[in-house]
C-alpha cells in the first residue's frame, strides 16, 4: 500500500499563505496525521475548525517535529460527520471533542465524545449531541446519550469533587471510581471558567486583544502575550528589537521561576512538610516582585507588547535584579534541598502518580510534565524563537514520571533559569526596546510556539484578505495535559489526589478560554 501524505512545511513564527496549505480528502488527512505523529518527536500542536463554505467546516492541523523544528500544516473540509481521527491518533482525542462542541460536527466512533467546556455550538443549527436551541446547557450535565465513565460492582463507590474546591483554586469537577481507597479511574470535567475569549479574537486585533492574552491564563501572562506578539510580528514581517526579545525571555524565565518555586512549596504542603511550604511561598513572591520591578505588575501585565516591550531595563535595574535573583536562588535551593533529604517527603513523592513515557507519547503530554517522564522536548531548544535563538538553556529531564520527578524537574529548571538570568542581565543587547510594526499581511497563517512554564503554548493566527484575524486558535499546554493527571491517578490512593493534582498544576481557565 502506498502512503499518501500531503502537508505544507513551515517553522515556528514563519507565516505562509493560507492558500498554500493543502486541503486534502479525509483519507489523505488521516494518513498524513498518523504518519507524521508516528514519530516520537512529533506532537499534534493544534487541530481546529473554522467555518468553510455554507455547510462545511475546514479542519486545520499543525504538527511540530522536535528533531527538525518543522511544523506541518494540512487541512480538510468536513460536513456534519466524519470518521474520528482519535481511533488512529490517540492524542487527537481532546481536540476532536473541542471540534464537536465548537462546530457541531460529529467525529464518528470517537471513543468518548463529550463536551469539554459546556457552551453552545458556534454554528447555529449544528450540534454534535442534537441539542436544540432552547435546551439549557449546564456544566457537568451530560448531554443525552453520554454519561460519566462508571465502574460497577461489589464495593465500588464514586467520589465527586467540585466545582468549588477546598483551597484557593479554580473550579473543575472530578469523578473518581474507587474500590476502597484505590482509584480505578478519574474523569475530569472542565468548562466552569469558560469566558468566550477565542471567538472574540476574530476580526481583531482590537484594544482588548492583548488583555485577553494576558488573562487567558493569568499565571502565564508573559507566555501567552509573547506567543501572541510573536504571531503578530511575524504576520507584519517586523521582528521586535533584539533588546526587547531578551527582556521577554527574562520575564518568561521569571514567570517560570515564580510558578515552579510556588509549586515546590505547595507540593511540600500537600505532604504536610511545612518548612519548604512556608519558605517557597515567600520566595515565589521575590520572583513576582522582580517582575513588578521591571513592569509594575507582579504577573507581568503591560510588559510584552507588539513590536517589543513597553518597559526597558536600565543598568541600575539589571544590577538590582541580579542581586535579588542571587538571593532568591540561594533561598529556593536551600528550601528545595530540605525536601530531597527528608525521607518522609521522598516516601510520599516517589512512585506516586506515575505516567510512563509511552503513555506520554501516546497521549501527547508535553512540557514540564512530559520531561518528568523522560520526554526530551522543550520548545526553547526545539522550536527556538525570539531570544532563545541565541541563548541556550540546558533542558532538564527525569525518567521516573512520578510526583517526585515533576517536583525535581521543577527544581532543575529553577537552577537553569536562575543561572541564565544572572548571565543574561550582565549582557543585554543594546538598542531600543520597542518599534512600530505596521499592519499584518492578509491571507496568511502563522504558528507561534513558546515554552511557557507548564509547557508549549501554541497560537495559530490566520488573517483575512484585509489583514484582520479570520481565526485565532489558542492551545494552552494544559489542553494536552489534563488527561495525564487523570491517568496518573489510576491505581493510586485517593488521598494522593491533591499531591498528583499539584504535581501537574494545570490551568483551568487556560483550558476553558
Amino acid at each position, binding site marked *: 500500500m502506498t502512503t499518501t501524505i500531503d502537508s505544507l512545511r513551515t517553522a515556528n513564527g514563519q507565516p505562509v499563505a493560507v492558500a498554500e496549505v493543502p486541503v486534502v480528502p479525509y483519507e489523505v488527512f488521516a494518513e498524513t496525521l498518523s504518519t507524521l505523529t508516528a514519530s516520537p518527536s512529533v506532537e499534534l500542536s493544534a487541530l481546529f475548525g473554522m467555518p468553510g463554505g455554507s455547510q462545511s467546516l475546514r479542519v486545520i492541523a499543525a504538527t511540530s517535529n522536535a528533531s527538525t523544528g518543522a511544523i506541518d500544516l494540512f487541512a480538510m473540509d468536513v460536513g456534519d460527520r466524519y470518521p474520528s481521527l482519535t481511533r488512529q491518533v490517540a492524542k487527537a482525542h481532546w481536540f476532536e471533542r473541542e471540534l464537536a462542541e465548537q462546530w457541531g460536527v460529529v467525529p464518528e466512533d470517537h471513543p468518548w465524545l463529550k463536551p469539554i*467546556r459546556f457552551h453552545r455550538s458556534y454554528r447555529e443549527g449544528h450540534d454534535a449531541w442534537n441539542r436544540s436551541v432552547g435546551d439549557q446547557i449546564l456544566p457537568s450535565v451530560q448531554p443525552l446519550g453520554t454519561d460519566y465513565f462508571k465502574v460497577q460492582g461489589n464495593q465500588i463507590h464514586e467520589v465527586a469533587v467540585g466545582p468549588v474546591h477546598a483551597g484557593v483554586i479554580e473550579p473543575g469537577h472530578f469523578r473518581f471510581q474507587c474500590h476502597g481507597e484505590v482509584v480505578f479511574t478519574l474523569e475530569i470535567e472542565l468548562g466552569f*471558567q469558560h*469566558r468566550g475569549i477565542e471567538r472574540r479574537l476574530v476580526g481583531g486585533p482590537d484594544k482588548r486583544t492583548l488583555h485577553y492574552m494576558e488573562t487567558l491564563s*493569568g499565571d502565564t501572562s508573559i507566555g501567552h502575550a509573547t506567543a501572541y506578539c510573536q504571531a503578530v510580528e511575524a504576520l507584519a514581517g517586523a521582528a521586535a528589537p533584539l533588546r526587547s526579545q531578551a527582556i521577554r525571555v527574562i520575564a518568561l524565565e521569571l514567570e517560570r521561576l515564580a510558578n515552579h518555586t510556588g509549586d515546590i512549596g505547595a507540593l511540600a504542603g500537600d505532604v504536610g512538610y511545612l518548612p519548604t511550604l512556608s519558605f517557597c511561598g515567600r520566595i515565589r513572591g521575590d520572583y513576582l516582585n522582580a517582575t513588578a520591578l521591571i513592569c*509594575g505588575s507582579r504577573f507581568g501585565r503591560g510588559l510584552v507588547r507588539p513590536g517589543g516591550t513597553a518597559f526597558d531595563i536600565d543598568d541600575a535595574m539589571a544590577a538590582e535584579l541580579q542581586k535579588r535573583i542571587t538571593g532568591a536562588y540561594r533561598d529556593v535551593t536551600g528550601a528545595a534541598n530540605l525536601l530531597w533529604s527528608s525521607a518522609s517527603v521522598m516516601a510520599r513523592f516517589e512512585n506516586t502518580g506515575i505516567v510512563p513515557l509511552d503513555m506520554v507519547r501516546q497521549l501527547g503530554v508535553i512540557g514540564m510534565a512530559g520531561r518528568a517522564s523522560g520526554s526530551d522536548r522543550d520548545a526553547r531548544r526545539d522550536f527556538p524563537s525570539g531570544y532563545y535563538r541565541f541563548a541556550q538553556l540546558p533542558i532538564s529531564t527525569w525518567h521516573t514520571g512520578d510526583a517526585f520527578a515533576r517536583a525535581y524537574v521543577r527544581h532543575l529548571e529553577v537552577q537553569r533559569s536562575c543561572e541564565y538570568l544572572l548571565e543574561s542581565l550582565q549582557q543585554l543587547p543594546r538598542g531600543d526596546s520597542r518599534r512600530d510594526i505596521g499592519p499584518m499581511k492578509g491571507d496568511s497563517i502563522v504558528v507561534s510556539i513558546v515554552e511557557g512554564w507548564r509547557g508549549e503554548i501554541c497560537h495559530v493566527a490566520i488573517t483575512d484578505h484585509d489583514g484582520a484575524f479570520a481565526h485565532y486558535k489558542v492551545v494552552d499546554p494544559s489542553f494536552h495535559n489534563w488527561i495525564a493527571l487523570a491517568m496518573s491517578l489510576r491505581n493510586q490512593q485517593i488521598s494522593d489526589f491533591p499531591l498528583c493534582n499539584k504535581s501537574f498544576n494545570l*490551568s483551568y481557565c487556560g483550558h476553558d478560554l
Partner: protein
Amino acid sequence: MLNIINERIKQGYRTIPFPDGEMPKLPERYRGLPVIDSKKCPEGCAKCVDACPTDAITMDGDMKIDLGRCLFCTDCMDACPEGAIEYTQDFRLATRTREGLVTDGRAFELAHSIDEKSRKIFGRSLQLRQVSAGGCNACEADINVLGTLVFDLGRFGVKIVASPRHADGLIVTGPVTQNMKLALEKTYAATPSPKFVIAVGACAISGGPFVDHDEQNNGVDSILSVDLYIPGCPPHPLTILDGILRLLGRIETNAG
C-alpha cells in the same frame, strides 16, 4: 531536624509589619490609584476614552475613571498627549460601594468599617471561603499569597477556610461565568448568616476584560450583594489586605 533549623535561620524573619510602621514601598513602576488632571485635557479630546480596553473612562463633565473596570494597564496614559493621567504609588483602593470606585483620584473614599456590633463578632475572627468564578488565577494567586509568612493573614484572625459551612463570607474572583453562576449561588446559600461578600479584581467587580461577553455576568453584584470591592487586575496583595482590614475596622485612616 538540625538542617531545618539551620535553613530557618538562613531564610530569616520575613513578615512585614503592615499595617503598623512605615508604609511598604512598592516598585517605582507599580500602578496604584490613578489621578486625573482634567485641566490638562485639550478641548474635545477623548483619546483615553477610546483607548481604554474596558471603557472605564467617562467624560461626563469632569473626566473620571471607574476603578471597578480599570485594568491598571498603560493604554490611557500612552494615548494621552498631555500626560493628564498618572498612576500613583497608592495601593489603598478598596471601597464599600460600587459608586465609590468612580473617581478622578482625588477625594477617594476608602472602605469604612462594619458597624460596632458586627465588629464585636467578626473584628478579630473572620473566616472566608474563596470562590473562583471565571478568574484567571492571578487574583486567586494573590489572595493565596496572603497566607504566606510575608503577609501572615492569620495574625489578624482572618482565615480562608475549606467549606462555606465554616465561613463568615465569600471572597469571590472572576466575572462569574455562566458555568459558575449556580455554584456561586449554592456556595453563598451554604454559608450561614450573617455573611459578607468580598469582590476581588476587575472581573469580579465589573466583568473586567470580559465585560459584556454572553458567557459571563459582569461581576458578582449582578447576583449577590457585595460588601467590599477590591479593584485591580489583579490587586496587589497589600490592596486586598488593606481592604479586608478596613472592613474589620483594623485600619481607619483615610487616604492622605
